[in-house]
């Protein structure tokens, strides 16, 4: 019933879903990403402007277009809130969204950042 209420509230209010997230993600400058089966990016993660040094970080990339599947990254901490995300399978050029989940001091945080892949 609560879910029906939530649905009705959304319908009545007509409000778009929130894009706020607790985790800030900054993709560090690097070579342009092209279509490839094993891409690599380095990101800097922070929560409330404090670099995230959590050990438990997972990341995935999804295309803005549906039906392309999810690329799961291998995450390697580099220190100072930086993480290398590797083995990203990027089969199509266009707009992608990087989603990162982490656990800091027992609290789960998550965030998303857009990035572009060239042909």
């Amino acid at each position, binding site marked *: 019933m609560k*879910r029906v209420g*939530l*649905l009705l509230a*959304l*319908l009545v209010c007509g409000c*778009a*879903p929130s*894009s706020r997230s607790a985790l800030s993600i900054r993709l560090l400058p690097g070579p342009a990403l092209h*279509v490839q089966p094993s891409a690599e990016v380095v990101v800097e993660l922070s929560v409330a402007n404090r670099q995230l040094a959590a050990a438990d970080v997972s990341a*995935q990339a*999804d*295309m*803005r*277009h*549906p*039906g*392309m*599947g*999810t*690329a*799961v990254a291998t995450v390697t901490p580099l220190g100072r809130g930086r993480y290398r995300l590797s083995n990203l*399978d990027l*089969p*199509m*050029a*266009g*707009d992608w*969204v990087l*989603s990162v989940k982490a656990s800091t001091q027992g609290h789960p945080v998550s965030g*998303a950042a857009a990035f*572009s*892949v060239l*042909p």
Partner: protein
Amino acid sequence: MTGQLRRDVLALPGLRALVRWRYARLLLQLPLLALALLAVYDGFSGSQLAGLNVATVSVWVQYRGLLALSLLLVGNVFCAACPLLLTRGPSRVLKRLLPQRTWPRFLRNKYLTLALTLLFLYSYEAFALWASPWLTAWLIVSYFAAALLTDSVFPAGTFCRYVCPLGNFNFALSSVSPTLIQAKDLSICASCTSKACLHGRTIPQEHLAATPHDFSTLPALPLNGQSGTVTLPGCETRLYVPTMTSTQDCTLCLNCVRACPEDNVGLMLRSPLAEAVQTRPRTDLALLLVLLTWAGLVNAFAMTPPYFLLARWLATTLGTHNEPVLLALILLSTLATGLGLTLLAARLSGLTLRTLAPLLMPLALAVWGGHALYHFAGGAGTLWPAVQAALLRLGLPLGPAALPVIARADTSFWLQATLLELALAGTLWAILQRFQHTRPGASARRLVPPAALALLLFGLALWLFAQPMQARVGLLT
């Protein structure tokens, strides 16, 4: 090749009994209704990543792919299973409360559908509907509301025939499907006075079991029936089976099959090119066919690098970065060019737009189908994880939720190329047949313009499908 094969698909064991069952259509509609409701729920409340949401995955990947397959292999199956028609129950109630109107005469054509199709094509790119679960959910809700309201105020079937862009897309492209509703024996229709396939018929309840062809399997829908009678509805889009030569306006509801007292209506196999050669649609419909033909190319074009190069060139040339304006310019100019080329080919060949437009339908289906199957081939497996995640949030766990695997459609180009080649061969053959039927003494040179137009469509589509596909939300980013 255009001759009737006279094989009735409904003669397959058990199929006729099934379609005459009162709940046959409901059986098809309920799964799609359930999926539509889940899509709306997930679109409004689930992940806003398009690839992880039931709304976007089901509508823009699965639905379009399965639609293309069904049109290629059977016919307008999706109108037959359309869950929007389940609004007929509520609309019958609303009809008692709302003033009843006849559909305005000036709208009894395809121009409204044509305008709505253009609006949809523009909105699809301008608002990146394909990337937004939230907007896709609104689109589904709006569609249900429009169907309900239209058929509550106007006669049932008005929405399907005169409004629904999706249904009219299906009507148009099913013109090259291998089946058509037809009378099994026209001599039986010649002596028919009731025209039950068109008007429906009311029969006493006790006659259900006594009538021929085992009506006991068909406890008919008691629509507006007096006490002790049942009404078998006729065709809501006002088609009369013995005169049908086209799938246009046929929702494949099979009411005619159920209503015919002589069991004389079949879903007959035919050459997919029969309609292209034999029909001559009204001008409004011919324009819609031409629009859909070129819109298929534009829709695929919007996923290729040259599209974005063109947008940047236009932005520089016109000195504007207003994306909605640039998009409107690209859409309208490409469609207008397509229409202009089609008119030119018709004029140079001595044909009319009305006779040339149906000849392009095989290529139109190949272009739309090739594009839809590209996404479907790679993304067929991405629906289930989204459904799992949505049901999990509803408290219905269906196994461990998994992420959709990365889609690859590496082999789809060969499928697309094969489809296009078959369509080109069919179109060229249909052009030849059309000339032999309508202009037997015409010079062979008259064949060149429509053949060149078909080759141009083929070449453009092949070139587009060979491009590295990309999906970008912005035009200039």
